[in-house]
């Protein structure tokens, strides 16, 4: 090799904003037309939307009479905030929900800060201890006053349903996926039947059956709480979908991983828990989080069995004669909050993928 070659550097690529635009937006006459049409639509939609949401909107006041501008009336949301967040939960007992919100927020923030110690313990607290605390806090017992679940509602109820669904459906889904791949014909058959039945039925049907038909099969006097029935329905529904997601991950595992674990003397459960599941779950993190996001949004369907979740209660307060005509504000607010939660989950999924990447 000559000395000249040694000093060669890769060619400098210079594009810049104008270069980029020329290459990507105005490269041919029809791309130019498309770009201009696109810009026109953005001009039509975005400025009016922003002025409705922010610039012309009313933020202060207490009644609808304060909303005189042409923009959104956020007073409507502000005045009904308590209902939207807590449902009909008794005012004197709201501190119980606030404690739970607080614990949840603190734990999640702790888990999100990188490089802290005791993250494992916080995770275990969140998955196993926190739910038990919540059961007592929310429904009563141990000296706390009983609060019937028909009073639960709003964002609080949405988080309860989604939380229970997410935390319980993953382990059930994993067991179903393992069961479907089991060498024992009975286990495999039962898991397959279970998965296919739940996947073949719309969630709305599941909720209807849980709410209306299930009591018919029960002996007289036996009555399960309606919320618990809905929770079980949501949980199994989500578990069946997760089972198929997890099964996809299991099938992506090379045979050599099973053989190396077996040769090392690991039993089936240890092999699954230590070698196979950690790797295959990692592969399907995006799909698992996708399922969770779908579950979170599907919780709005509980409205049809008379539970007032976040969206349901917003619709409900919109029918209050004092606030008729403000349903747009309600829906935009609901969409924004749903988006924040779902986008948060999506970002967390990406972080988790990056963090767990070991280069294979």
């Amino acid at each position: 090799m000559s000395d000249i070659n040694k000093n060669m550097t890769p060619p400098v690529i210079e594009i810049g904003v104008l270069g980029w635009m020329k290459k990507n937006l105005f490269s041919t006459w029809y791309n130019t037309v498309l770009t201009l049409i696109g810009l026109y639509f953005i001009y039509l939609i975005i400025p009016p939307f922003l002025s409705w949401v922010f610039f012309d909107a009313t933020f202060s006041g207490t009644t609808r009479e304060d909303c005189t501008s042409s923009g959104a009336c956020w007073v409507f949301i502000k005045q009904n905030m308590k209902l939207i967040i807590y449902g009909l939960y008794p005012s004197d007992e709201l501190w119980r929900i606030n404690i739970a919100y607080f614990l949840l927020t603190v734990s999640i923030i702790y888990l999100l800060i990188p490089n802290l110690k005791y993250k494992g313990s916080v995770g275990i607290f969140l998955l196993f201890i926190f739910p038990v605390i919540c059961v007592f806090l929310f429904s009563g017992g141990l000296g706390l006053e009983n609060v019937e679940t028909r009073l639960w509602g709003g964002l609080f109820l949405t988080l309860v349903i989604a939380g229970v669904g997410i935390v319980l459906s993953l382990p059930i889904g994993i067991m179903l996926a393992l069961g479907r791949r089991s060498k024992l014909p009975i286990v495999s058959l039962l898991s397959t039947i279970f998965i296919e039945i739940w996947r073949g039925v719309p969630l709305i049907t599941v909720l209807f059956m849980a709410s209306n038909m299930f009591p018919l099969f029960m002996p007289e006097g036996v009555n399960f709480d309606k919320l618990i029935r809905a929770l079980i329905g949501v949980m199994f529904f989500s578990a069946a979908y997760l089972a198929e997601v997890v099964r996809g991950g299991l099938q992506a595992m090379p045979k050599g991983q099973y053989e190396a674990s077996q040769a090392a003397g690991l039993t089936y459960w240890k092999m699954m828990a230590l070698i196979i599941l950690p790797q295959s779950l990692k592969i399907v993190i995006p799909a698992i989080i996708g399922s969770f996001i779908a579950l979170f949004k599907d919780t709005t369907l509980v409205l049809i069995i008379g539970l007032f979740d976040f969206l349901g209660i917003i619709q409900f307060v919109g029918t209050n004669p004092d606030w008729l005509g403000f349903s747009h504000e309600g829906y935009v607010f609901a969409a924004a909050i749903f988006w924040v939660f779902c986008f948060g989950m999506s970002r967390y999924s990406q972080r988790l993928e990056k963090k767990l990447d070991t280069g294979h």
Partner: protein
Amino acid sequence: MTSETMIEMSSVHKWFGELHVLNDINLKVTKGEKIVICGPSGSGKSTLIRCINRLEEHQRGEIVVEGTELTNDNRSVEKIRGEVGMVFQQFNLFPHLSILDNCSLAPIWVRKLPKVEARKKAMEYLKRVQIDDQAHKYPAQLSGGQQQRAAIARALCMEPRIMLFDEPTSALDPEMIKEVLDVMVGLAEGGMTMLVVTHEMGFAKEVADKIIFMDEGQIVESKNPTDFFANPESERTKTFLSQIL
């Protein structure tokens, strides 16, 4: 040398569907013996050693490892797997665990060793295969030769009485074969009982007590290295040797 029997296979048969992959295998391995198994691909040599730790099930005949017969009873399988270490062609390290965790996992979860002790032992074996400086890396960060040496260390951490090698150098780049073979020679000199499926005839000459040639599921020839290379009896062995030497 004592002649304690470590492995005894008698009239072992196995089929993959219609294909008779193991046809009347009789093999006795004594303590400290090093056996090299060679033969064309599809001759059943890998299947033979994989039957010893039950990665494949034999269908007829009897396999006794250290006095325990291999049956469908899980306990006998687990007991034997604890005594037999295996090294694979594709290394099969656990990619989500560091090299150190790869090595200490089975001692902790199968042997129930305390974590600290298992890690200490893992470091010793990693030092022996000269990759203790890579202990905290993940498998994907290592070269093929380093990965295979880590896989050998992982198997050794269980302190097995028998080591099975299934074409340990076939997936390696040429310049890395030697570093793995050196580790295996060292292991052989330490008195380990070894069954090695390989095409490395130099290694066979140097280390083996016995070379077995297999073809179409049968043991065609079984001799000490000198006789094996000097006077092979069967035509098939002669053809094979002429092709690879």
